């Protein structure tokens, strides 16, 4: 086993080189090609998914911006509505106030007028009664008792009239 054996060395070369040639053509080439193509496709898939992710992020950002815009618009609309309502409220209140004041004023005027009218009527009646009293006094004898009776009668009449009015 230690002795040199050139034949065995040559057989070793024949076996090894045969195996090398066969494996290189029929095994390594297809296997390495498969590994490489798989690696390439995995890389491409990763790149593609990365691109998709970026795209999705962009779309999301767009939607978010739109949503924000819509939200602020709604906020603006609400504020506008509130302002309009406030204005309307103030107007209505001012109007109501004005109307009630006018009504009160009118009622006061009415009362004043009625009072004046009543006073005037009273004056008229007092004058008429005075005339009647005077007439009665004149038509009766001027006796003191009669006199008294007359005055008292007239006064009672006046009282009565006054109470009536």
């Amino acid at each position: 086993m230690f002795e040199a054996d050139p034949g065995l060395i040559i057989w070793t070369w024949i076996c090894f080189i045969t195996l090398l040639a066969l494996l290189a053509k029929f095994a390594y080439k297809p296997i390495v090609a498969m590994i490489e193509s798989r690696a390439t496709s995995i890389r491409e898939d990763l790149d593609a998914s990365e691109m998709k992710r970026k795209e999705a992020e962009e779309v999301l950002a767009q939607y978010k911006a739109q949503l924000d815009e819509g939200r602020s618009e709604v906020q603006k609309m609400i504020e506008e509505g509130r302002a309009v309502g406030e204005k309307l409220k103030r107007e209505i209140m001012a109007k109501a106030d004005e109307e009630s004041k006018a009504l009160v004023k009118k009622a006061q005027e009415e009362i004043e007028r009625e009072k004046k009218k009543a006073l005037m009527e009273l004056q008229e009646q007092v004058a008429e009664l005075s005339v009647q009293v005077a007439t009665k006094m004149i038509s009766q004898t001027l006796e003191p008792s009669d006199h008294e009776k007359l005055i008292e009668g007239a006064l009672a009449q006046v009282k009565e009239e006054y109470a009536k009015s």
Partner: protein
Amino acid sequence: MAEGGGAAIDPLHHFEVHPIIELKLGGMDMSITQPVLWMMISTVVSFGILAFVAATLKRYPKGFQNFVEMIVDFLRRELVINVIGEEGKGWFPVVATLFIFILTCNLMGLIPGSFTATSNINVTAGLAILVFLMVQGAGIKKYGFVGYFKAFIPSGVPSWILPVMLPIEFISLFAKPFSLAVRLFANMMAGHMVILVFLSMIILFKSVIITPLPLIGVVIMYAFEIFVALIQAYIFAVLTASYLSDALHMEH
């Protein structure tokens, strides 16, 4: 493993080479001996397995294809591209075939009754000479004949040291293939020798009480031999890649 009663006592007998088919070509003894036969079997088996996997490759690998792809990818990336660099890609088939051929020969030798081709110094020397020639060839191809051998003398070295340095460089040049050949041969032979010695002990002592002890030894050594078969094939391939890398990066 033992080939007859007499052989059991002399473990070295197992490693003797006998011609199976006598063959003479131009005065050279080209007889087919046991190592030749088992190298041929290893060639056929390893090619058969790899060619079958390569022929039935699937895009979505599973099982054995996965295993083979893993080994091929490992050899290509860790052994060739990492050690030699991108320019070493062309050497991948050589390094990978060395690994696969040696591994198959080593494992084949574990079949009882077989012969471990790599336990013969001529086989390992043949492979080492091939590696040596390829390494020199790679260096010469890259740097040119003069340029390659000039690189053995580092620039800036004083001339008086050259008589010392050149022989050292020269020896180290040949020590590399020599160590490759001897390492593989010695490892493979020693492992089998230990197994054979244990087995011989059984026959030697002819005792039922002692028999289990060497038997346990044989089982442990067998398991260890599988590991050694793998490791030695790997070492041979790694060193080949590293020698190629040295020859292709003479600037350092």
